[in-house]
C-alpha cells in the first residue's frame, strides 16, 4: 500500500499582493522502505512540500487545494490536534542545520526522554533505556555518558545523528529529511546518508529526501522528483532521470554540475533559467581604466612567484588562565609553506576546521600570524607596520567571501559598496569618474545598469556574489582570494559565477587563491591544489595529478568520498558514443 501520496496539491502564501503560489499541482507518492528524492534549486518549493505534509507551513501559508493521503487516510483536513498526534509518531522530520535544530539549553537526554515518553508512554526509566538504544543505533559512542551533554558539546555530524535519533523517537513510518547533509562535511555527509539508508531498509520506513545536491540524490534515492519554479518537472526512477533526463530543465541542471571526473574549459549554463545576463564585452579592457592603468610597478620575483608563505602558524587561545601552563590553545594552522605563481589558480581543499579560511585571513592581514611570514610581490607584508605602505600592497590583494548575504552592507547602495574601495584608495580623480568605473565594473560582472542604485537585499544570492566580485575588482587587484565563493549558491548560479571568475582571470591576468571543500569545483578551477587537514598541508600537487594519482592517504580518502555521479558519466559516454555514431 502506498505510504504517502499527495494528489494535485497547491500550496499558497496569501499576501497583500494576492496569493503567492509556492507549489502547483504536485502529485508524488512514497512506498514503505523507499527513498524519494525531491531535487531543485532554491525557491523551487521543495521544502514547502515537506513542511506541508507534516503541516508545519510557516503561517500564513496553507494548502489551497489537493489532498494528502497517509496510509489510506486523508490527513490534510484533520484538526490541529489530530495533526499534532501524527507528527513525530507517524511522520518524523529532520532539518538542515544540526547546529540550530536542538534546544541549546537542554541536555540530549532531556530532549530524548521528553519525546519518547510522549509517544511511547514508557515512563522515565523505560524512556531512558530507549534513548540509549536509539543513540546506539545512530552511531553515537558511549551513549550513556554522552546523553548527559548539551548540544554544543557535540560536533556537527554527531548533532545530526542526535537529530535523527530524536526524529526516530516515535517510531515514525515516514521521515521527511530536509537537506539533512547540506551543512556537513563530505566525510560526515557520507556517514549520515549511509545511516539514513540503513534505517529505511531495516525499519521499512519511507523517506522523502529534499535536497539541491544531485550527488546526494544519485547516492541514496530510489526515485527522484525534479522541481522547478513551484512545479514538478519530472518524476521517476533515479537511474533513469539522472541517466536519461527527459525534461530540458533536468538536462541543463545536470549538465551544470561540476564534473568530478574530468576537466572542462567552461561550465555549461543552466539555459532553462531566465534571468541570466551574459556579460557583453563591449569595451576593450586593455584600454579601459580597469586594464590600462593597473599598477605593475611592484615586480614579481624572477620565477614569477607572486605570493610566498613560509612556516605560517596560527594559534587561538581557547581557554584563559592566570597560569601559563593551564592556558589551552588551538593550533589552527601549523607550519604551512606554499608559493603561488602569477596568473595561476591555487586551490586549497579540506574539511571544515582544517584551517583553509584562516590561511586566507592571514594572507590578507585580517589575522596577524602567530609566527611565520607572508611574502607578497617580494615584500614580507606580515612584517610591515607602516600603514600607507601596507595599503599599497593590500590594494593588490582582494577577497571574495563565502556568504553573499552577510558580506555586503545592507544599508548601502550597490553604487556606494563598489565605489568604497575606489574612493578609499583614491583611485579615481572625481566622484563622476568613480561612478563611471562602478557602472563598467557592474557590466563586467554581468549586472544590468539599473542595479547600481539598489540595495543588496533586492538581489538574489548569485547576483550579490557578482556584486562582491565587482567590489573586489574595484581596486584593480592582481591577486584575488576566493573563500568558498559558491558554496552558498545553487548549481546553476555556481556555474555562472565560476565561469565569470575564469573569464576575469584571463582578461585581467589575475592570480587566484581558491578555497573550497568541493572537490569537483576545485578540479574545474585550479592549476595546483593543496590538501589540508588539521591545519597542515598534507599534499600539494598539480590538480590533474592529484585527481588521477593522489599520494597521501587522506587525499585518497577525500577523493573516495566524492558523491558518485556514475549515472551521469554513463550518460555522457552514451552521448559521446551517439555523437561518434551520428
Amino acid at each position, binding site marked *: 500500500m502506498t505510504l504517502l501520496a499527495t494528489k494535485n496539491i497547491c500550496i499558497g502564501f496569501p499576501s497583500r499582493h494576492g496569493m503567492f503560489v509556492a507549489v502547483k499541482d504536485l502529485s508524488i507518492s512514497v512506498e514503505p522502505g523507499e527513498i524519494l528524492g525531491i531535487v531543485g534549486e532554491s525557491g523551487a518549493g521543495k521544502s514547502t512540500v515537506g513542511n506541508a505534509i507534516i503541516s508545519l507551513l510557516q503561517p500564513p501559508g496553507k494548502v489551497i487545494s489537493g489532498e494528502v493521503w497517509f496510509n489510506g487516510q486523508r490527513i490534510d483536513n484533520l484538526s490541529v490536534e489530530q495533526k499534532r498526534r501524527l*507528527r*513525530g509518531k507517524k511522520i518524523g522530520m529532520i532539518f538542515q*542545520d544540526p547546529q540550530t535544530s536542538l534546544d541549546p*539549553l537542554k541536555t540530549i537526554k532531556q530532549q530524548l526522554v521528553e519525546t519518547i515518553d510522549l509517544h511511547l508512554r514508557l515512563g522515565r526509566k523505560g524512556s531512558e533505556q530507549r534513548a540509549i538504544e536509539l543513540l546506539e543505533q545512530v552511531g553515537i559512542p558511549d551513549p550513556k555518558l554522552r546523553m548527559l551533554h548539551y548540544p554544543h558539546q557535540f*560536533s556537527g555530524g554527531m548533532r545530526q545523528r542526535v537529530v535523527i535519533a530524536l*526524529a526516530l523517537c516515535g517510531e515514525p513510518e515516514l521521515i521527511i529529511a530536509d537537506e539533512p547533509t547540506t551543512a556537513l562535511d563530505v566525510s560526515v555527509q557520507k556517514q549520515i546518508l549511509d545511516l539514513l539508508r540503513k534505517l529505511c531498509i531495516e525499519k521499512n520506513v519511507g523517506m522523502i529526501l529534499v535536497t539541491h545536491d544531485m550527488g546526494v540524490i544519485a547516492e541514496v534515492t530510489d526515485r527522484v522528483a525534479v522541481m522547478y519554479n513551484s512545479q514538478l518537472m519530472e518524476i521517476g526512477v533515479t537511474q533513469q532521470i539522472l541517466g536519461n533526463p527527459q525534461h530540458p530543465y533536468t538536462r541543463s541542471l545536470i549538465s551544470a554540475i561540476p564534473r568530478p571526473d574530468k576537466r572542462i574549459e567552461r561550465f555549461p549554463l543552466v539555459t532553462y533559467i531566465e534571468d541570466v545576463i551574459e556579460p557583453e564585452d563591449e569595451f576593450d579592457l586593455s584600454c579601459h581604466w580597469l586594464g590600462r592603468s593597473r599598477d605593475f610597478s611592484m615586480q614579481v620575483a624572477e620565477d614569477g612567484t607572486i605570493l610566498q608563505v613560509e612556516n605560517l602558524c596560527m594559534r587561538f587561545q*581557547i581557554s584563559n588562565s592566570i597560569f601559563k601552563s593551564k592556558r589551552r590553545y588551538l593550533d589552527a594552522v601549523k607550519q604551512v609553506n606554499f608559493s603561488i605563481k602569477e596568473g595561476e589558480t591555487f586551490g586549497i581543499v579540506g574539511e571544515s576546521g582544517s584551517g583553509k579560511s584562516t590561511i586566507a585571513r592571514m594572507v590578507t592581514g585580517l589575522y596577524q600570524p602567530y609566527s611565520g611570514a607572508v611574502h607578497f610581490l617580494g615584500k614580507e607584508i606580515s612584517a610591515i607596520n607602516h600603514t600607507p605602505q601596507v595599503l599599497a600592497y593590500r590594494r593588490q590583494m582582494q577577497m571574495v567571501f563565502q556568504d553573499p548575504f552577510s558580506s555586503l552592507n545592507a544599508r548601502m547602495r550597490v553604487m556606494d559598496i563598489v565605489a568604497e574601495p575606489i574612493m578609499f584608495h583614491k583611485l579615481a580623480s572625481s566622484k563622476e569618474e568613480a561612478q563611471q568605473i562602478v557602472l563598467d565594473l557592474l557590466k563586467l560582472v554581468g549586472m544590468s545598469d539599473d542595479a547600481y542604485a539598489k540595495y543588496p537585499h533586492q538581489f538574489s544570492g548569485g547576483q550579490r556574489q557578482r556584486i562582491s566580485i565587482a567590489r573586489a575588482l574595484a581596486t584593480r587587484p592582481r591577486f584575488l582570494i576566493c573563500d568558498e565563493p559558491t558554496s552558498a549558491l545553487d548549481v546553476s548560479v555556481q556555474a555562472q559565477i565560476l565561469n565569470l571568475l575564469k573569464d576575469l582571470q584571463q582578461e585581467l591576468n589575475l592570480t587566484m587563491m581558491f578555497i573550497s571543500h568541493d572537490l569537483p569545483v576545485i578540479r574545474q578551477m585550479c592549476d595546483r591544489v593543496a590538501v589540508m587537514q588539521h591545519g597542515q598541508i598534507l599534499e600539494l600537487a598539480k590538480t590533474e595529478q592529484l585527481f588521477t594519482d593522489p599520494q597521501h592517504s587522506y587525499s585518497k580518502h577525500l577523493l573516495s568520498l566524492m558523491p558518485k555521479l556514475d549515472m551521469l558519466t554513463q550518460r555522457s559516454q552514451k552521448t559521446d558514443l551517439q555523437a561518434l555514431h551520428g
Partner: protein
Amino acid sequence: MFSFLVKRLLQSIVVLIAVALIAFSLFKFVGDPINNMVGQDTTLDEREALRERLGLNDPFHIQFYHFISNAAVGDFGISYRHKVPVSDLIAERAPATLELSIISALLSVIIGIPMGVYTAIHRSGFISRSFMGLSLVGISLPTFLIGILFIFLFGVILRWLPTFGRGEVVAIGWWTTGLLTWSGIKSLILPSITLALFQMTLIMRLVRTEMLEVLCTDYIKFARARGLKENAVNFGHALKNTLIPVITIIGLQLGLVMAFAIITETVFQWPGMGMLFIQSIEEVDVPVMAAYLMMISLIFVGINLLVDILYAYVDPRLTIDGGAKHG
C-alpha cells in the same frame, strides 16, 4: 569560575571608586553646607571654626581620601542636618525603600513575563492587542503622573486606599516592615503598582519580542515536528531560551527601580531613602548624598555580578570553564 569572580570583583571596586569620585566632586558645587547648618547670627569666626572642624578647608584630594577610607569601613560621617551618623539614618530608611522596590520588582516580573508570553503566543488575539495598547500607556506616562492619577482615583474619589506614608509598621530588630499589618499592606499597594507599571510593560514587551524570535528558530520547529504539545514547546523550550536577555534587563531594572523610587516616594510621601536623598539635596547634606549614591552603585554592581553568575547557570554554553568539547 574563581578567576572570573576575582576579575569581576576588582572591576566592581574600580567602578565604585569612580562613582565616589564623580559624586564627591559634584557635591563641591551644590552650595555651602555651612549656610544651612548655622543660624543668621553666627559670626564669621564661628563659621570658620566649624568649617575647620568638618574638614571642609582641606584640599580636595585630602577630603576625598578621608571620605573613601571612612566609607570603606561603612562610616559615612555625620549628617550635617540631622546631626546623627549617616549609617544610622540610612539603616532607618532602607527597609521602606527596599520593601517597596522588591515588591514592585516582583509584581513586574510575575505579571510582566506571563503577559509577554501570552501576547507572543496569541499574537493577533483581542486580549493581546489590548495588552499591547495598555502597555503603551505604561511606557509613555511618567511615573509621577501615574502616581497622582492613582491617588486621585483610589484615594480621593473612591477612598479605597491610603495615599501617603507606610501605615503601621512592625519592628523586627532594626528592620521595620509594613507587610505584617493590614494598614501597612494597604499603603504599599498604590506606590508599588505605580513603581512597577513601567518595568512591567517593559518586561512584557521584551519577553514578547524575544519569544517571537525564539518561536521562529529551528529547534522550536523541530520540537513541533516531534509532535510535542503546544505547552511543552512554549513553556518547556521557548520560554527558557527567552529568559537569557530578559534576566539582564530585569537585573538592570531592579537597580533602576530603587533609583526611580525617589519620584514615587516623593509622590506618596513614602519615608524611604529616596525622600531622604531629596531632602538632603535641598539642605546640601553632602555626607547623606554621597552615602546614598554609593549605596545605589553598590546595589547596581552587586546585581550585575549576580546576573552574570545566573547566566552561567541558565545557559550551559556559557560555563566559564567551557565544558570539554568532544568529537
